[in-house]
């Protein structure tokens, strides 16, 4: 049986929601990339909490590490600030 998410799960979901919204509205693309990393690690922790360890592993690898690197590189290539 999968345990209910509980207080920690709800807290993680709230962190994900706040981080995702803040990343949408960030004017600085580096801040947006960092917030997306926060979102990814919270999501990975939540996946692990509900028992999807493989998914959590993938999310931590791809979302937390690799996407952040690629986003920062892409920001280098274009520009840092949104008008």
């Amino acid at each position, binding site marked *: *049986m*999968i345990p209910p998410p509980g207080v920690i799960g709800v807290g993680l979901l709230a962190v994900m929601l706040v981080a995702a919204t803040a990343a949408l509205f960030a004017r600085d693309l*580096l801040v947006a990339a960092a917030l997306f990393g926060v979102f990814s690690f919270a999501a990975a922790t939540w996946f692990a909490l*509900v028992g999807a*360890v*493989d998914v*959590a*592993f*993938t999310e931590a*690898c*791809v979302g937390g*590490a*690799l996407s952040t*690197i*690629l986003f920062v*590189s*892409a*920001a*280098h*290539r*274009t*520009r*840092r*600030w949104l*008008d």
Partner: protein
Amino acid sequence: MSPAPGKTRLRHGVPRILGALAFAALLGGLVAGIRDLPRLGDPASPAATHVSPRFIEAAARETGAANMVTAVLADYRGYDTLGETAVIFAAGLGCLIILALAAADRRETPPPGLTHRFGSPILDVSARVLTPWILMFALYVLIHGHVSPGGGFQGGVLFGSGLVVVRLVRGRRGPAFGPGPRAALVLACAGVLAFLGIGFLAMAFGGEFLDYGTLPLGGDEAHVRELATLGVEAAVFAAVAGTVCVLFATISAGVRETEAARSAGSASPPGSDG
């Protein structure tokens, strides 16, 4: 009629309202649809009553993989995984094509707001210490995917990330480590082709596409499937690791390293005493 500089036309007027309406309609539909979903982890949901018991009961016996996720991803649902691998490979190719075309008429001014400067003994030593462990852990994740979380995809991402870390620390002009962009592209192609090849090999020996049971690897069927699953995971590993390297190489190729950066930043930075 060209848009004003710094603003796209989509920010104002009818398209924006239409976009907002479409988004609201989609969001409303999705939220309304949530009510019809089975509860999270409901044992009486359709997926849990028909498909899951079969996998839970038979996966270890039929495929030799104690980690059910690996059994499902690489064996029962091998076709899905083939599609995913092809999508990731296509993403790498798309990045390569678009950015290589953009590099042909690259601006000579660096993009505003960011400069990229390399060079620090501390970073170099840390990368030297950590990278072998990262790469070894990637291989462990690949090989150990049968019994613990992980598999080709995660291992490939880790391996690619380990190589990317060295690039990040040393810069493009630093000593080369790992495959260059061309070798990485070849690696990614080889991974996708190896996956397809294993699938067609199963057909050649009288089975269905990606149905590994008929491969002449010796031993009983579960053992054969275990070996074939490892082969498929290794193919995914190569495809993903190669694609990661290609993605990073193409995306970071436009980052300019300034003259000051190449002299390893011994000069005093501007504005540091403000």
